[in-house]
């Protein structure tokens, strides 16, 4: 009973709370990092160094008036943020945060579920988030959101192809779709896959930036062009859900990258015995650390680069990334067969 | 309760198929008709997978995969035709699609 029901439920609860907190503080981190890059201080008023700013933000978003435009499609308008958020959270179920660990005397793996189609599950669930984007823009019954949502969906669809292609080459390397087995395969080889597949990682990362609508691919919400993107008409808690989903998706991208390319919970150089000292640090800390570094790069990129234009973005996706990703798959397949 | 047998799945599939069929016959919106066809294809897939489970053989699933591929092709072409048609006639009502040429 405890094993089958209580443990998974507790895990889910911990995971949800963890993600929501992480999202809140990721927003703060983003503001802080951007501020530091721009020689500012960032939020400083709420709590020491603005540490309570997320709380204030959440309270503000909850108590703000929740506006539905008069001619909006009420049902779809309400549904859209939920459709965006749910996949972003559900995906976390298969991400392995660490190896089997003793938690309060119960030995358990640090993931909610290890299904044998884990990676495909992530891809397929993540592809559902697009509905929220399209419907949010459409249901607002306003031109700017509509344009933005068309942009967003085209962008998502095209970059999904490239990203999925890189995942195929990772599956070829690992010989499994299960997230846990992918990490274990890296352990067996004593090699983070990023060193074997730097191109795949590059494509994945760029595609990830585009899929999460982050700079320099933040066209769907380019406020200088489209005044805020597909959620222009949203306010209050429903806007907060969109916001939450965007950052949760960032964490997903970073966490999946950590699992696939950076050895998940493995310490650096897992094959070098001399570094065995590093094993003192538990696996889940390594995992979180790597994810954090990747997220930092996300924020850093945003503070540095200007924005692509829509057609350039499409060109980059279809004419550069996708051919590269396909070539990478072919080369990887040949290498796997030959070696 | 009785255990779930393939017969249950087949009844479900038949019902879904009939719903799709009624949609195709009754609705006049071309897009809805296409969606009804998707429903029917799904009903078929349920059948295939149920049999696959029954006989513990994956061939049913493989077949379902082919059905999905064909459905994707059908959707792409069909929606292309709808768009082309809409561009010319500004309607997606099958009752207005009575001429073979214009």
């Amino acid at each position, binding site marked *: 009973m405890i094993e089958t029901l209580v443990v998974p439920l507790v895990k889910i609860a911990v995971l949800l709370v963890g993600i929501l907190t992480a999202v809140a503080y990721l927003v703060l981190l983003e503001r802080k990092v951007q501020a530091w890059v721009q020689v500012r201080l960032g939020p400083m008023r709420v709590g020491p160094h603005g540490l309570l700013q997320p709380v204030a933000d959440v309270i503000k978003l909850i108590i703000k008036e929740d506006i539905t435009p008069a001619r909006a499609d009420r049902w779809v308008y309400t549904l859209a943020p939920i459709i965006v958020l749910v996949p972003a959270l559900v995906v976390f179920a298969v991400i392995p945060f660490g190896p089997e660990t003793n938690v309060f005397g119960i030995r358990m793996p640090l993931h909610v579920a290890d299904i044998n189609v884990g990676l495909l599950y992530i891809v397929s669930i993540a592809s559902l988030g697009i509905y929220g984007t399209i419907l949010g823009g459409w249901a607002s019954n306003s031109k700017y959101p509509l344009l933005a949502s068309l942009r967003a969906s085209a962008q998502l669809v095209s970059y999904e192809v490239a990203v999925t292609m890189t995942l195929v080459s990772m599956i070829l390397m690992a010989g499994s779709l299960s997230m846990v087995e992918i990490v274990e395969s890296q352990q067996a080889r004593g090699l983070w896959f990023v060193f074997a597949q730097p191109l795949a990682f590059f494509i994945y990362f760029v595609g990830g930036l585009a899929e999460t609508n982050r700079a320099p691919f933040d066209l769907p919400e380019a406020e200088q062009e489209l005044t805020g993107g597909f959620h222009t008409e949203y306010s209050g808690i429903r806007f907060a859900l969109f916001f939450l989903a965007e950052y949760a998706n960032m964490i997903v991208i970073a966490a999946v990258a950590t699992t696939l390319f950076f050895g998940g919970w493995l310490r650096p150089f897992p094959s070098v015995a001399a570094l065995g000292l590093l094993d003192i640090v538990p696996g889940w800390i390594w995992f979180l650390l790597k994810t954090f570094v990747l997220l930092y790069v996300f924020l850093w990129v945003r503070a540095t680069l200007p924005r692509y234009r829509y057609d350039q973005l499409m060109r980059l996706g279809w004419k550069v990334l996708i051919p590269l990703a396909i070539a990478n798959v072919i080369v990887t397949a040949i290498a796997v067969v030959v070696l | 309760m009785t255990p*779930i047998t393939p*017969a249950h799945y087949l009844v479900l599939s038949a019902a879904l198929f*009939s719903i799709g069929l009624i949609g195709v016959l009754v609705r*006049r919106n071309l897009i809805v008709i296409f969606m009804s066809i998707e429903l029917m294809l799904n009903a078929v897939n349920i059948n295939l997978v149920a049999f696959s489970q029954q006989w513990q053989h994956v061939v049913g699933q493989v077949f379902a995969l082919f059905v999905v591929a064909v459905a994707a092709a059908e959707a792409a*072409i069909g929606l292309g035709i709808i768009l082309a048609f809409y561009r010319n006639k500004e309607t997606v009502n099958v*009752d207005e699609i009575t001429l073979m040429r214009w």
Partner: protein
Amino acid sequence: MTIAFYTLAAFILALGVLVVSTKNTVHAVLFLVANFLCVAMLYVLLQAEFLAVIQVLVYAGGIVVLYLFVVMLVNLKRGPETHVDPRRRDRMGLLIGGAVLAEFVAILLYGFAPRATGAAPAAAAPGVGNVEQVGWSLYVDYLVPFEVASILLLVAMIGAIVLAKKEP
């Protein structure tokens, strides 16, 4: 298991009815997605995880998005179903649909009622994931159909582009 099946079946049928009966096309598309997701869950129930994921990925994440796009592009200025051809017989359609359903059920009841479970062959070798089984079957036994399917998709893609392209 049983409860899950009945719940999913109820959802699938209800959503199917909503798809064909809703006036608002965007809502119909949404119901269609939900319907497909329920079907995917049914596949999980049938231990076809791979197909379930493909169902979500290709159907819900791909094909239906296409529908949604078209629905949004086909921004109708008048209701799509205002015009009714006088030769149309809606009732007849319903009747035929109902008749087909009755026929199906009759066949099923007749064919399956006496022996509830057929003699199932031996279960597949344990430890082999569903993905691997499907993969082996697909790439070894059904390689030629697989390639034909890929050609079909390619042709469909080109056809769709040609159709959707505006004449210059």
